[in-house]
Each structure stands twice: as C-alpha cells, then as structure tokens.
C-alpha cells in the first residue's frame, strides 16, 4: 500500500499544522485505513520522532504544545466518542493534585498518551487525591499520572500507592513527573516511576503494561 498519505499526516503533525493533520487523517479514513493503524503509524510515529528530538537539553513546551494541539485535533477526529464494539484502549487517569493549579505539564502528558493510543481521563488541576483514585477505579485505569510543579503536593503523592492498595487497586501503576516531583526518586515518593519528561513516562508505561 502507498504510504504517502501516512507520511503526509506525520509531517503535518510534526509541523504543528492541525488543519492539515485533520485533513490528512480524514483522507486516510476515507481511503479505508483503520483507526488503529492511523494511531500507530501516524500519531505514534510522530510521537516517536518528537521523542527522539526532545532530549532533556532540547525538550521545550512550545514545540510539544504545537504538535500536541495537532495530535489532539486528530484524536478528536478519530474518536469523536467511544464507539461500542471497538477494542478497549488502555486507560490512564491524570491530574495535578490538590493545591497545585498548574496543568500545562499534565496537558502535555495527556497529549502524548492520547497520541500513543491510550484513553486518557483528565481529572484536571487542584484535584483531591481521593477523587483521582475514585476515577481510576471507576474507569478501570491501568495507571495514574500525577504532575506536580510545586513541592507542597509531595505529601499527597506519597500516599497514592497506599490508598490504592487499601482499595484493592494495588495493580494500578503510579507515575509522577513535573518540575517539583522529578527532583525526587520513585522510592522517596513511593510511586512506581518518576518521569523526567512526558515521553519518559509513556515509555515506562509501554514496558510496564506490556
């Protein structure tokens, strides 16, 4: 099969051109290309190329946000709502915890996860830990992602695994990231993984949930 349409989609995504990306995705669907293939070969490929560019030295929000905006537009095009009968996607619940009103980092994680084909439940910012865990249980999440820009949320992060275990949800992976949390170790935060970047976290999930 000619892959030029998929390459055009990847190029549009990496250019951050959301209108062109949606048009390319729509064309692929009209040609009969499966949604799953567009996610894996289109969105997933764009994410991998972006990941390769975004070392710790080169990672910057602006570039990620531009690609992210295009990716989310395509995700909306591909998944206007959950369609019965479609294979369930792995669910990840994300939030910034109570007291932390910064949600840009969380939004980046949401975008990268969506681009990789995960179903993302966004509990927003300033979210009580109990609400986050309720959502994880309700949606059958495989993982929880906590983004923290300020150090004051650390005490809540440290309680997450324990609360999950108390409710019989100890299998749910807990990931932490963001400017404040990534200064700490997974052991000190009592989580499964501390991500340096959003891509770092998604790579971990890819191997841990395999």
């Amino acid at each position: 099969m000619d892959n030029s349409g998929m390459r055009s989609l990847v190029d549009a995504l990496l250019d951050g051109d959301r209108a062109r990306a949606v048009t390319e995705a729509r064309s692929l669907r009209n040609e009969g290309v499966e949604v799953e293939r567009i996610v894996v070969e289109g969105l997933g490929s764009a994410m991998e190329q972006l990941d390769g560019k975004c070392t710790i030295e080169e990672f910057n929000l602006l570039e990620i946000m531009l690609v992210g905006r295009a990716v989310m537009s395509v995700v909306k095009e591909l998944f206007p709502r959950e369609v019965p009968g479609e294979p369930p996607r792995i669910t990840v619940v994300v939030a910034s915890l109570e007291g932390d009103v910064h949600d840009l980092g969380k939004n980046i994680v949401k975008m990268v996860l969506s681009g990789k084909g995960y179903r993302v439940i966004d509990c927003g910012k300033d979210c009580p830990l109990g609400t986050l865990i309720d959502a994880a249980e309700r949606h059958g999440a495989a993982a929880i992602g906590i983004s923290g820009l300020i150090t004051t949320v650390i005490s809540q992060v440290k309680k997450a695994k324990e609360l999950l275990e108390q409710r019989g949800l100890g299998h749910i992976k807990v990931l932490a990231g963001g400017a404040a949390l990534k200064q700490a170790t997974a052991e000190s935060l009592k989580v499964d993984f501390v991500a340096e970047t959003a891509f770092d976290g998604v790579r971990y999930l890819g191997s841990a949930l395999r």
Partner: protein
Amino acid sequence: MKSIERIQAAINFEATDRVPVIAQVFGHTAVVSGLTIQDYVRSGRVMADCQMKALARYGYDAVFAVMDVNVETEALGSRLTYRPNDYPYVQSHAFSKDTNLKAIPLPDPSSAGRMPEILDAVTTLRREVGDEVLVVGCVLGPMTLATQLLGMEKALYLAIDDPEGFERLLDFSTQVVIRFGIAQIERGAHLPLVFDPSASPSVVPPRFFREFELPRLKKVFAALDAAGALAAWLHIAGPTASILPFCLESGANLVNFDYYVTPDELMSKAPSTCCNGNIKCLDFEEEVPEKILSESTGLLEAFAKRGGFILSSGCEIPPRSRSENVDALVSATRGWR
C-alpha cells in the same frame, strides 16, 4: 567585609574574605516566623519583618522583597486566589489575545495592586540594613509577565499564531517591568532580580529566546543600570546551558544556574560572569544538613580557582524547608577560604 562588599567583589572577580552566600528564601521566612504565607504575600511590612528575622536567624548576605510571581499581573487586573499556606495563583488572567494594549495604562507602582507593598518592603529593608546587606527586589522578565497576563498556553499559541501580537504583548510587558524595577531602585532596592522562568529552554527553544526575549532583556537591564542598579541579576531555572551566551549578551553580570547545569558547563560557557547556584531546591525540604553541607562544599571547591561565585540554591528554597538545611548552606561558607 560587609555582605554587600563581598557580593560586589564576587561579581567583579575580586578577592573576598569568604564566598558570599544567598539563600533564596521568600515564603520560608514567613514559616520560620510562625506566620502564614498569605500574611507574607499581602503585606510589605510583614514581608520585611519576616526577612529581617530570617536574616538574623541565618546570617546570609542578602534579603529579598519577593512575594510571588503574580504581583505584576494582579496589578494589571488578573484575579488571584489567595491561600493561607501557599502562594496565590491566577484565577482569571487579565488579558485575552484580543486585548487592545494601547488602551491599557501602565500600572503605577505606587498604587497598583500589591506593587506598593513591595516598594514599602524595599524601603523598610534598606532602612534596616543600609549598605551592609544586599536588598534585592524582584521583577518578572518580559516573557514571564506575558505568560502571566495571558496564561501560558494562550501566550505560547499566540507567539505562533500571531507573532506580531505576541511581540506587542512582550513590548508592553517590558515597559511594565522597567517602570516597576526603577521604582524599586528609587525606593531602596540595591537591585531588582529579573525572574524569568517562562523563558527557560524547558518552555521555549533557544532560538525563540534569542529572537523574542533577548532584545527585551537588554532594554530591561539597560534601564535598571541607568537607574542605579548595583548589578544585573538574571534568574532563569531549568536546563539553561543552551541560552547562557544569550543571557550574557542581555547585559546580565550575575546569572542564576539550576541543578541541571554543572559548574564545569557554567564556567565554560560563562567564563567571566559571576553566577549563583545550584543546589536542588527540593533537597532543602527532603534531605539532611550533611547532604546540603556536602553539596555546598563541592560547589565551593568547583569554583575555588575561578572565583566569581555566590553559593545558593538553583531556585527558590521551598517554604517548608528544614531550617537546619539553610543553616548548613550558610555554614559551608564560614569554614571555607
């Protein structure tokens, strides 16, 4: 040597009796004074009192009139939510992408929002310490103020979707910063720290910094210098190695560096510029004094030959840090020549 002489000597790469030490403590000074952060960020009098008590407690070389990153945006109409035990945050941003900036007057530092509280604090602090200890005010960098006025996501998308509109916002922000910074110097600050976290390479690429932020920072530092600032101190956290050449080009002669940048990297890219840093700020909350002392000693050793160094953290020391850890930072310089 007086603290201020020690800092000036370090900036000029001259001999000092010991390495200067600056603990970047803001809300922490309220916590050690037994007050809430809300008390601290609402009143210049309270802030100055907390800073003086902390200076007496720790004995470092500078005091700060720094509240939070929302002073300027609040003065321009952003609505904040205040919390007892944490810094306030923006509930609704003052501007939208369609705001007509020509119709917005520059805020008057003597009356707009909490700006007069900052001015009262610098006046009180300068009266208390005179020219013994460095009195540091604070302004946001133009990029950071732009993101605080519009919101980070909207500001960054504006930069891409309407670069001219974004530049107009940056120019407006530059004027606000300059006016507020000069007012702080006139009221007693030895210098205002230019705090610009949104210009970090974690947020925007280096070429973006060069094109959009560098020309404005040059204007800011030139204006502050003309107003009598003792030094040009630029504070950007994160992995800043890639923008260090531009930071120097901005006119800064004192640059903050965070834990991402090693002393060797810093010295190779800024060989003749004084710097302050770079202990991981979370360590002050999570680690023990022995660790802070060890990290401090490592930094003192790294810069011993070159000079031009002020021992400090890479960013703000968190409010609920352990006091023993701040003590350890300060004491590291006492036994070191």
